[in-house]
């Protein structure tokens, strides 16, 4: 019984990882950059949800947070990332710039909301538990798993079936040649970056009632996100789904059967073990979305 419960716990946490890692990994696939400030949008989503949800309801909160964090992401991409990419300084400079943004955001959050962890409420309609035979499990946690499954399916379909998706793939495969075929890569890169930060904001809303909300959460999850992204193979959407689930499960079982810190230790151990045998990660290769 605990095995099933821990599996569900692992899937729930894994779902949050997947939502967050999707933006990171696709942006890396397109522009070869790592946005260390990605967690800021997640943190912002979680804090905003605490204030917004009681006033405008859950669905409207998700929509509002997505819009706001996507717009802020767009500002960061246009003002901070794009100039560096244009001057052919994408790697380390973007890393340091976004790290600076994250540190400032974390400190400002402390000033605005205080240093004490908060917990947001489970949406009223999703409160309570579901009974599945012998298993009793919180409805909201199952909702997070289902939400992520649906969103990732839609994302995969969009990448493979829509014209924009094909253009995104072509940039990931060969940005220069795609541009020589007329693709406005800078604009699509900005759009995808903003969608990624928007999804990170939504992940924050969803995670609020599950994980606690505090001013350094934008860094704490980042480490495990790097594990998910690297383990899956940088730039691979399928990779982060598989590794997100895997790390979620490792975490849940480690915490349940060993100790509170075992989750993280095991997650990093799994990553190191995989990288020794597959340096590009489980699904790492040139193109994304395979």
């Amino acid at each position, binding site marked *: 019984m605990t095995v099933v419960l821990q599996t569900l716990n692992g899937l729930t946490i894994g779902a949050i990882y997947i939502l967050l890692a999707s933006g990171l990994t696709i942006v890396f696939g397109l522009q070869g950059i790592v946005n260390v400030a990605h967690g800021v949008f997640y943190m912002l989503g979680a804090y905003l949800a605490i204030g917004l949800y009681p006033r405008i309801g859950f669905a409207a909160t998700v929509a509002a947070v997505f819009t706001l964090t996507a717009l802020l992401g767009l500002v960061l991409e246009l003002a901070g990332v794009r100039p560096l990419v244009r001057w052919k300084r994408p790697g380390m400079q973007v890393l340091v710039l976004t790290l600076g943004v994250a540190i400032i955001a974390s400190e400002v959050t402390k000033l605005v909301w205080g240093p004490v962890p908060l917990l947001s409420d489970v949406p009223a309609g999703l409160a309570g538990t579901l009974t599945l035979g012998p298993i009793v499990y919180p409805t909201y946690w199952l909702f997070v798993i289902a939400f992520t499954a649906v969103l990732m399916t839609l994302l995969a379909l969009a990448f493979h079936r829509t014209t924009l998706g*094909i253009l995104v793939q*072509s940039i990931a495969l060969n940005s220069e040649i*795609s541009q020589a*075929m*007329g*693709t406005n890569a800078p604009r699509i890169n900005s759009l995808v970056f903003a969608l990624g930060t928007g999804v990170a904001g939504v992940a924050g809303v969803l995670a609020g009632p599950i994980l606690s909300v505090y001013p350094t959460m934008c860094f704490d999850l980042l480490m495990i996100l790097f594990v998910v992204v690297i383990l899956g193979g940088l730039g691979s959407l399928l990779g982060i789904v598989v590794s997100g689930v895997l790390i979620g499960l490792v975490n849940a079982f480690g915490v349940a059967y060993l100790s509170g810190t075992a989750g993280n230790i095991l997650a990093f151990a799994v990553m190191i073990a995989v990288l020794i045998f597959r340096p590009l990660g489980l699904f790492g290769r040139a193109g994304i979305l395979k």
Partner: protein
Amino acid sequence: MLTLERVTAGYGDTTVLWDVSLEVRRGEAVALLGRNGMGKTTTLLAALGLNPARTGRITFKTTEITRWQPFAIARLGIGYAPEGRQLFAPLTVVQNLRIPFVNKHPDRARWPAQLERVFTLFPALRERRRQQAGSLSGGEQQMLAIARALVGGDELLVLDEPTEGLAPTIVSAIVDAIRALKAQGITVLLVEQNAHTALAVADRAYVLEKGRIALERRAVDLARDPEALQRYLGVDADTALLVGGPTR
């Protein structure tokens, strides 16, 4: 249609092109010849904005495009088939064609007609339309690369080494296709290491020597100039004549 005036370009600290000036007129096929490493591809990359010119001036029709971004240049109506094909290997044939079409073609409703046009030119691609580009044979990949340069409704085709590494029968199929496109009024700028092939399709030729234009000739004249061929391109004039003459 395309004019380069005193273009200088290079990579990092290295300058590869010095003061290159050339012109491609509407309806013409122009070959850019030269030995390996003389700056042929660099010239194309500068014109396409993929490795922008450091100095000089590049004009397409009446628009100066020297500092333009590559996608904006492409959207003016320049189709490009890069050296080594550079297809989007995991995408299908149709998806590879769809990318330049949606980016560049002014009329989205022309998609079926544009597909039909390239499948008429390269019937082999029609059967392979749902296959991944990476699974095609070398010849088919080159056909797809040229087709991809064409579907945007382009008026100027820039072809970099379109016959490189292909079997002789495939080479002649590609040459026929380029001739057919020229007959349709499309302007062609062709980079080739193989002077025979290039002179067989081109009206005029420029020869690059160490990053400078060393020679500009009518293709028929260059094909009959054994001394120049030997000196700049290291080819035997007899074989050049064989292919370079009016074959059809």
